[in-house]
């Protein structure tokens, strides 16, 4: 990993190519959303229909794992995470990503995946406390001697989440970059097609695990 290159600073925070790419992704997603929901119609068509299908698909997917009630409640978080990671993964397939200043797949750096995993970590405990109040902490004492292991488990989760995502996306990009360097024509194509699949799988895995953490944190005591 080469030294982080800052394009410029805002509020003292260095802005890198991955950050600008994130902004671009945010912009695209927000504009699409505004276009889709600007004039909501009873019988959806065009972009409204397309995004409704995406939302329904995600809702059905998470409903199948954590039940409709919880899926409906957590969908904004999980759905946003899914779309953000998915498009971040795919942004690495744009020619020049990682080389052109201002364009780099956000999920190909550990910093970004760690940031996302940390949001999941805090969201998990916030949802847990919201659902059970202070009684949420009792979950860590079942049984009492498991307390240290339970705590470790909760801190390992963001680590595994972020490393899995980062490792996969970074690895794919390295493979494609290497292949492009060796034989620039045709050979990288199958790998790039596989990357499309892996990008989707990694986005699903990340949000799927997040949804399970949320479910676990908010489920009723037994």
């Amino acid at each position, binding site marked *: 990993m080469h030294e982080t290159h800052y394009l410029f600073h805002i509020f003292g925070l260095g802005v890198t190519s991955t950050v600008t790419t994130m902004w671009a992704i945010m912009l695209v997603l927000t504009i699409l959303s505004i276009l889709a929901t600007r004039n909501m119609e009873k019988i959806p068509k065009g972009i409204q229909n397309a995004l409704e299908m995406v939302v329904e698909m995600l809702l059905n997917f998470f409903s199948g794992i954590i039940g409709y009630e919880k899926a409906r409640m957590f969908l904004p978080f999980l759905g946003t995470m899914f779309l953000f990671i998915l498009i971040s993964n795919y942004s690495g397939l744009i020619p020049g990503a990682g080389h052109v200043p201002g364009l780099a797949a956000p999920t190909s750096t550990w*910093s970004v995946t760690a940031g996302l995993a940390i949001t999941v970590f805090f969201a998990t405990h916030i949802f847990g406390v919201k659902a059970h109040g202070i009684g949420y902490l009792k979950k860590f004492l079942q049984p009492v001697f498991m307390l240290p292991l339970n705590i470790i488990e909760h801190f390992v989760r963001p680590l595994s989440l972020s490393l899995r995502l980062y490792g996969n996306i970074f690895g794919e990009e390295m493979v494609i970059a290497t292949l492009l360097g060796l034989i620039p024509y045709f050979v990288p194509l199958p790998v790039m097609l596989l990357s499309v699949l892996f990008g989707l799988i990694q986005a699903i895995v990340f949000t799927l695990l997040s949804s399970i953490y949320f479910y676990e944190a908010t489920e009723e005591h037994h």
Partner: protein
Amino acid sequence: MHIDLNELIWAIINFLVLLALLYKFLWNPILNTLDKRSEEIKSNLSSAEALKKQAEEMLEEYKKKIADAKSEAQAIINQANKAAEENRNKIISQAHEEAARIIEKAREEIRREKEQALKEVRDEIATLAVMAAGKVLEKSITKEDHEKLVREFLAEVGEIQ
């Protein structure tokens, strides 16, 4: 492999901002629309269910009505048949009676006619007998005998009177 704190903080900020934006422009409106739509479909389905039930009830009612009408019609037909049967029997028995009466009358008539005829024949025979007797007597008796007979007859008649 290292963590750049600037990128990490940006990732958190960006995600939270995107979450807020998409919540306002994507999740909230679309989830509400989906809820509304499923609510509407549910209410449409339940009203369709109610209408179906109503239609079934009406169908049942009409079936019952038709069955009632059929049985009523059957009853009317039965009654008509019975009345016709009765009427027929009555007419036949009347006809029998009438026939018997006519036969009786005819017999009476015949009897009367016969009697009349016999009487007439008897009278005719008497007259013919007298005439024949007269013819016989006319040849055998003389004028004096005849006058004598008439006188005797008249005398007898006069005695009776």
